[in-house]
């Protein structure tokens, strides 16, 4: 029983009945939409829509203070950073059509390293730019009313503080642990090639 032909015969005797029938499978695949990249596409659309609204504001809103324009531009930059990062990610997903296992493992490794880079660098830059942008943008609309200024800026500062010091570190910690574990496993597999 321990020669290869016996093993092949045993291997081929596996019951494959649990698999769906061809017609059923065809129905299933037709229902399938690109769920994996749907979230990224939504982020890209929202980021680009926000950029367009901001651009519209620059040209048609006739702001009088330079801080509003600077705020506008900074917010557009942060939206563009977000859109470009996600577009690159979707592009990578589509480029990966037919590759060997070894190329595939390298691809996932690269993707995960990019993700770590995103959390450590890109996200920090985008959040800083958008925070400064938001603060500058509000100024023209609230500066003539001291109470409104205090309320708006306090709310903005609280929101940004929560995002910076609570939400981001939590998300980063959770994702970083998962990503590092994954990279360790990927490195282990890479060594097998």
């Amino acid at each position, binding site marked *: 029983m321990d020669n290869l032909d016996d093993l092949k015969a045993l291997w081929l005797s596996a019951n494959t009945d649990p*698999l769906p029938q061809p017609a059923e499978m065809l129905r299933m695949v037709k229902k*399938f939409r690109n769920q994996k990249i749907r979230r990224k596409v939504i982020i890209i659309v929202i980021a680009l829509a926000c950029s367009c609204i901001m651009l519209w504001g620059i040209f048609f809103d006739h702001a009088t203070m330079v801080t509003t324009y600077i705020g506008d531009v900074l917010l557009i930059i942060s939206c563009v950073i977000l859109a470009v990062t996600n577009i690159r990610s979707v592009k990578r997903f589509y480029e990966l059509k037919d590759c060997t296992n070894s190329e*595939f493992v390298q691809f996932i490794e690269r993707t995960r390293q990019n993700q770590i880079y995103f959390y450590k660098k890109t996200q920090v830059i985008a959040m800083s730019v958008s925070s400064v942008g938001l603060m500058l943008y509000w100024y023209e609309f609230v500066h003539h009313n001291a109470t409104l200024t205090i309320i708006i800026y306090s709310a903005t500062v609280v929101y940004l503080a929560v995002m910076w010091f609570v939400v981001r570190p939590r998300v980063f910690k959770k994702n970083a642990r998962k990503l590092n574990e994954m990279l360790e496993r990927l490195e282990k597999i890479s060594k097998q090639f």
Partner: protein
Amino acid sequence: MTDFEEIYSKHSPQIYRVCMGYFNDADQAKDITQETFISVWKNLDTFRNQSHISTWIFRIATNNCLRALEKSKRVVTTELPLNLPAVHEETQEEKLAFLYQCINELEETERIIISLVLEDLPQAEIAEIVGLTPGNTRVKIHRIKEKLAIKFKTNGQFR
């Protein structure tokens, strides 16, 4: 019957068996088989006939197996206890379960390679799927067979 249905009928049992070899878990094997054919359906138009369609499908399937490590639960491999007493004549199912268990103890790429060997794929095609040189593939196959032989002999399950 459409092209896709024909392809599915012909290759899905092979893909399911390879996934069983990789995961030793019927549900996971079924999921990955389905995921593979969703990719096949989506990309059938772009398949450029540069390789056999079987090579292409096996690549997608084995890449999906490797990608499973990205999901939350780790692929669990169980160690076989040493010197299992052969108390009775094993049924076909028990023998197959033992084979899956032996394969499941191998490293990820070894599981893929031996599953493709058992599917009777030529070594050149296996090399194309995994991304190793033909020479390297030959050496790997030889080593995996040796490893499996040791497991069988140690456990005395197959005589």
